[in-house]
């Protein structure tokens, strides 16, 4: 899918994050919170819906990582571990329009762990009042093991969220680089973006189409599992 729109690059603040990526980010934050709260309070229907929505969003993000705007693409922020380590040691390129190498690694780990969480949730059961949409496709023992794994992964998510927030706080308070505002407005100060960078933005309609496909896939998975 070809990118079809180019960004302005000259103003004091430069558009670096497209709307779909920003919406994905904050939706993910909300859904993780809702998923935790609903499970904690026993609202399992809400938990199921938030989990399925989360899964659809993650599928969308995977697709957006290939077909999305420059800063949303995996190719832009996914780097080999040595480069990530070099960045963490303060070497290498310091300015990045999108995710820096360490942030990119964090994004990938978060997506992988959240995907694992959503998938194990599909097979989960509490043996009492809730059964995940795919739980009946595996043995009860396997379902219970995946349920336990679902709980364990949540603790990992808590740890990663803590790490993510601490890192963002570090950039904000120690390095003076506000990563939060660009994720809201989409714009970064020009001084924080490499000179001469040309960002290409994919049309939002493509994002809507990819999201629709993701939702359709998850819906089909749900009905296939439950019927």
């Amino acid at each position, binding site marked *: 899918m070809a990118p079809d729109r180019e960004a302005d690059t000259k103003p004091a603040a430069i558009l670096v994050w497209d709307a779909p990526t920003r919406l994905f980010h904050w939706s993910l934050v909300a859904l993780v919170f809702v998923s935790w709260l609903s499970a*904690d309070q026993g609202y399992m229907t809400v938990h199921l819906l938030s989990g399925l929505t989360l899964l659809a969003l993650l599928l969308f993000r995977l697709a957006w990582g290939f077909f999305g705007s420059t800063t949303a693409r995996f190719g832009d922020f996914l780097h080999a571990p040595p480069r990530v380590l070099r960045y963490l040691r303060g070497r290498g390129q310091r300015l990045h329009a999108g995710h820096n190498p360490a942030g990119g690694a964090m994004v990938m780990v978060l997506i992988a762990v959240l995907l694992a969480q959503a998938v194990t949730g599909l097979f989960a059961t*509490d*043996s*009492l009042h809730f059964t995940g949409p795919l739980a009946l496709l595996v043995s009860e*023992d396997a379902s*219970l*093991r995946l*349920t*336990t794994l679902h*709980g364990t992964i949540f603790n990992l998510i808590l740890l990663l969220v*803590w790490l993510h927030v*601490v890192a963002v*706080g*570090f950039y*904000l*308070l*120690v*390095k*003076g680089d*506000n990563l939060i505002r660009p994720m809201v407005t989409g714009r970064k*100060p020009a001084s924080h973006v490499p000179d001469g960078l040309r960002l290409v933005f994919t049309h939002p309609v493509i994002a809507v189409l990819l999201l629709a496909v993701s939702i359709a896939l998850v819906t089909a998975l749900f009905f296939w599992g439950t019927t």
Partner: protein
Amino acid sequence: MTGRISAWAYAAGVLLVTGCGIAAAMALRPGFAATVRQVTGLEPARIAAPDSFYTVRVAPLFDRHCAGCHGARAAKGQLRLDSFAAVWRGGRHGDVLGKDGELYRRITLPQSDEKAMPPDGKPPLSKDELTVIRLWLADGARGDVPAATVKDAPRLVLPVTIPQMNPQDVARQRAPLADELARLQKRYPGLIAYESLASADLQVNAMLAGKRFGDADLQALLPLAARIVRLDLSGTAVTDAAPLSGLRAVTHLRLAGTGLTGAVAPALDGMAALKVLTVTGTNIAPESLAGLRRRGVTIHGEGDDGA
């Protein structure tokens, strides 16, 4: 652009905020607090004594009724009831013990209540089982009170489990000797039968044939020897030369009222599976059965020549 602070100040701030977060979580979640206290060693690990009322009487009830959903495989409500430490740790909402605690409340709710435990039509705890748990909770849910000292506890009744019969397995076990058995049942009507519906083992009641049953007849049964576990030769015409040692699967043997003597002892010694022997009314001297006695075989009727 925001103001800067040093990395050390930030690290201290992160530690402070994280510590406050953990403290808040501990305050809001007693179960989490108990886990933290035990993991950090602030609270000693709780272990129940092997002869304690908990280990002997309470833990088996938790295993039977609760641990399926509150154990290693699954811990509903983050509650595990498969160890003394876990029971004390409590669940998501903290402590479940105490005589008015959540545990006792839930197991005494009417079965129609959706919060009743065990749920979903699983058999509820009996009155005696509830009494055992109530007594344990009332005494502080301790793990060091010897079971023998709790005088008001209902009598301990050990559950008896009867293995389920699997007709396919039984048929498969019976198949190798089925033809031979049918032939011999025809030849000796009423004398040979399976031990039970769920067994491929045989019992032979030759007593019904009386003196018409002799050594040659016993020899004829040897093809079934691997499955004959009970053999009653009482009142038959078998002699000391009867091929008893070939019946290696027999566990119960009755020789009452036969003319056997001590000379049969070597053959009896060869019956490796023998557990119970009846020699009432025979001429078998007790001393000739010394070998069997040493093996732990129960012998009835020794020295009794008339019963």
